[in-house]
């Protein structure tokens, strides 16, 4: 019996956004990264085109974090003591984007400074040819100070800068406008808020080709379902032609996945949770994997092994 296969035809397309600039383009990156461009629901390759695979990024910090799981400390070892070495190791592990996050404080407990942000950005840019994201600690005032400096330091490199939230998007967007960068437009799990912030950023004069949406994600077991559904709804809206939802999506399952007890803690937990190392890795991978099917274009991870596993999934989904 011949079954008539139903296909969806969409009018909208996700916008393409490119990160990183080569020498010819006014930067120093050895490669650039383009995401977006999809014309169907996530990985429905049977009815649309998917010009770019979801990109896998690794998070690198300006200094060794004090609150990361010991399993992550083990995985990166001494490389964590120096952001340049860490970025190199991340490149070797297969990252397509270095997601550099700046801490609120310096190692001595004092507030992080613009000078430090500049120095770290410079170091990392010199250590790797990959495109770079530079993200503040997520507190409006500190973000503004650090990210403006970082944006100047990376002028022309087409960095992804953030966190650009409703509270402080103006300063960050101004930094992107002045130095030719892309912004991460972050809103708390809400379709309308996502859309609104894109409109506000665009109204300041930043082209839509320079905005990536971060819809916020929760970890497996800790609210992932909300983020998952918001992403599916955003993607449906984009394909239906709602222009201000057509930005590529970036998500941070590494940060969320490693924050929770299942990943962080090895002792005093129920025996049914199983082997700590495998469980923790699964927690990050399962969170990230679900988001790939919900429409993630950039997936920010923390563990190199998770990147390796997701590479397998992405390659399989993109295979001809």
């Amino acid at each position, binding site marked *: 019996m011949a079954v008539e296969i139903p296909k969806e035809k969409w009018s909208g397309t996700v916008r393409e956004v490119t990160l990183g600039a080569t020498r010819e383009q006014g930067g120093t990156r050895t490669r650039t990264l383009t995401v977006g461009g999809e014309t169907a629901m996530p990985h429905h390759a049977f009815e649309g085109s998917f010009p770019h695979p979801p990109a896998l990024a690794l998070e690198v910090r300006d200094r060794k974090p004090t609150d990361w799981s010991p399993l992550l400390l083990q995985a990166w070892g001494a490389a964590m003591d120096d952001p340049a070495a860490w970025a190199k190791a991340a490149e070797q592990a297969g990252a397509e984007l270095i997601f550099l996050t700046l801490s609120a404080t310096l190692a001595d407990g004092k507030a992080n400074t613009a000078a430090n942000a500049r120095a770290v950005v410079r170091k990392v840019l010199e250590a790797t040819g990959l495109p770079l994201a530079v993200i503040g600690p997520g507190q409006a005032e500190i973000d503004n100070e650090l990210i403006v400096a970082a944006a100047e330091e990376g002028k022309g490199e087409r960095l992804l800068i953030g966190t650009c939230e409703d509270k402080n998007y103006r300063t960050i967007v101004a930094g992107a406008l002045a130095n030719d960068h892309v912004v991460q437009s972050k809103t708390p799990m809400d379709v309308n808020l996502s859309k609104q912030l894109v409109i506000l950023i665009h109204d300041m004069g930043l082209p839509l080709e320079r905005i990536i949406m971060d819809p916020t994600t929760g970890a497996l077991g800790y609210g992932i*379902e909300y983020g*998952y559904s918001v992403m599916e709804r955003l993607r449906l809206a984009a394909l239906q032609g709602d222009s201000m939802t057509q930005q590529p999506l970036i998500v941070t399952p590494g940060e969320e996945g490693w924050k929770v007890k299942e990943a962080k803690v090895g002792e005093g937990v129920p025996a049914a949770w199983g082997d700590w190392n495998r469980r923790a890795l699964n927690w990050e991978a399962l969170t990230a994997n679900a988001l790939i099917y919900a429409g993630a274009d950039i997936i920010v991870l923390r563990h190199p092994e998770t990147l390796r596993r997701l590479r397998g999934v992405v390659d399989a989904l993109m295979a001809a």
Partner: protein
Amino acid sequence: MALTGLEIYKLLPQTNCKECSFPTCLAFAMKLAAKQAELKACPYVSEESKAKLEAASAPPIRLVEIAGDDGKLAVGNETVLFRHEKTFFHRPGLFLRVKDSLPAEEIKKQVAAADAFKADYVGIPLTLDGYAIEAASGDPAAFAGAVKAVRAASKKPLILLTSKPDVAKAWLEAASGTRPLLHAADASNWEAMAEVAKAAKVPLVARAETLDDLATLTQSLTKAGLEDLVLDPGVKGPKDSLEKLTTLRRLAIKKNFRPLGFPIITFPGAGGKADDVLLAAEHIAKYAGFIVLDTFDPASLYGLLVLRQNIYTDPQKPIQVQPGMYEINNPKDDSPVLVTTNFSITYFAIANEVEGSGWPAWLVVTDAEGMSVLTAWAAGKFDSERIAKAVKTVGVEGKVKHRKVIIPGHVAVLSGELEGDLPGWTIMVGPREAVDIGAFLKAMWVN
């Protein structure tokens, strides 16, 4: 697909006799379409119309139920493609594959270990759903022995994996008293398999590589009198799965295509190449009804079961606990008082942590409409006023002789205002994360 009122009207007698208690047949038809009336209220519908109406109102994906010695599992009857459109209803069953080539004692040991697996997620017990026994040995005596061995170690539902009708028959006898799923009928064996399944009254899996062949097969099986079918489209990796399972879901829900309106079974470990844990996760999110795992590893099973729970929660209402006062580790009048919200994930995060730390405590759970600490705070549902009201009304004042209350570190900003709203109480700001509560109490709780 549901019929419109007008389509239903055409199938009614159109005499407006009012016996259904509606003024006209059309009015009755409209109520039927809105599911606010039942067809049997009209005594005059023809048998033919009845059959048509019943077929049209049958769920687009058949609900298929299997049962073990104790415990049932029903899958299918889904109505949407995306969970936000309504909700996903019947969680896919997670089964563990067991091969009959192992000695009976070994099977018992493996199954007993897997059967003992029980994790708790926000108060919901998570377990495996059953076992899929595979005829790998080729030895008829081993088949029946394996079923007995599994039943000795577990009461959960079974799936029987064999393409040989005579083996299936022997197995179903060994499984009598339960309602297993039989896997599988294909183009070469379907007539004999259909007979076996029909005689034993068990659901049968139809297996074919292409959807065309699958539809042909299910139609043959339906004609042979089988109603409870399950589809095995033989998916290979992430890409093939997504395409086939999405297409199947769409055909059923959007086209009401009966030949493929059945739940789906997948074997994420079968291809050997893919990351089976991540492939199983895809199948949970994207449309499987039964998932057969090849290995038992709590470290992945727990994650998969939590994912299943998350994907299948009702997006319209967060999972919540009853607001009120909860006692942990038999608290006394000098035990700490903590406040939190009634979002299940939040409540269990903090309650489990306090319990695990060994500290006796009074936990005041405010009515934050099922939201997490920060979400509720941002939405104005976990403010000073609500916290103060909860502390005053749950009766904790009569239980403790001190007047100190610990609030979550994430809402430290509330402490000033709360001092005003709770006169006589000292507001202590706890740690941000529940994991640190034990250490915090040790350092800060002095009487």
